[in-house]
């Protein structure tokens, strides 16, 4: 072990560790923001997305991420928005 390594190690020992509360807050903000977008969506939505993906995949090769499905609530009805990104096909 070189001298500089030893110094780094010693310094590391005395360094104050990152505040764990800060980590907790950052992690919570990310996961909760994500989970809030999933709220209020019906349970069948992920399954529907999977089925649609399977049907499209029969004809073209696409990724899981290429199908986006959104459900928007209006006063008296809901709008199902389906977004499929198809790859460029050379003819």
């Amino acid at each position: 072990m070189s001298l500089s390594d030893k110094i780094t190690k010693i310094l590391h020992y005395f360094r104050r560790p990152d505040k764990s509360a800060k980590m907790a807050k950052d992690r919570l903000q990310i996961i909760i923001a994500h989970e809030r977008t999933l709220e209020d969506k019906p349970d069948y939505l992920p399954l529907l997305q999977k089925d649609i993906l399977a049907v499209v995949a029969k004809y073209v090769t696409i990724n899981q991420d290429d199908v986006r499905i959104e459900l928007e609530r209006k006063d008296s009805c809901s709008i199902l928005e389906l977004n499929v990104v198809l790859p460029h096909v050379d003819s």
Partner: protein
Amino acid sequence: MTKTIVVTSGKGGVGKTTTSASFGVGLASRGFKTAVIDFDIGLRNLDLIMGCERRVVYDFVNVIRNEANLNQALIRHKHIKDLFILPASQTRDKDALTLEGVSNILEEMYKTFDYIICDSPAGIERGAQLAMYFADSAIIVTNPEVSSVRDSDRMLGLLSSKTKRAEENREPITEHLLLTRYSPKRVARGDMLSISDVNEILRIPLLGIIPESPAVLRASNGGVPVILDEESDAGSAYADVIGRFLGEDIPHRFIEEKNHWLKRLFRFKETEPA
């Protein structure tokens, strides 16, 4: 008009029953006729925390099934005349709790009670859903800790969609955050989420902070709700919470680190007469 309050959290062990018990005592001591209902079917504990476990004869499910009437099942508190407890059943399965059954009981209670406190079980199963369904206001009990904060956020989502007020498009449930087991010392050290951290994430009005305190365990050991331990920090914090809930303007306490013992000693010497 009766107000129905749900005490909920999602996560277990954060202080729902402790809070329900102290809330019941606090409101009833101020002269409001108050009932606390244990919705944790199969895992009844409110009776123990309130010190009436040996007086349980009939329970919530007995009343739903018409095996007893409401007055037979309600237990009046030994010393506080306006306080009643409706215990959960200990033996039956959770399915015994029905929307219609709960609705009927509450309907009957609305005739005589000022406040009904619904002590929710942990989780998001039927007991928890029914405890919040009829609520006018909700106390979200949260510990400054990641899993509790996340679960509280989930419960807020449910409160805004899976309740009677939400379904009937009425004014939404009033939400209150109660931060429990708070340790100013650990917050100062950077090892615990602070009040403002939790506030920033959950974004609901803060009703109060209950400090981590040995008084809470002592209270449950003796079956005397901690709010009655007026000398204790947790007890007086709960008393403040009741006042705030009723609209009084009371500043938050127990949110700063206690003085170091040396400083305290020093100040003591300073103030001592010469």
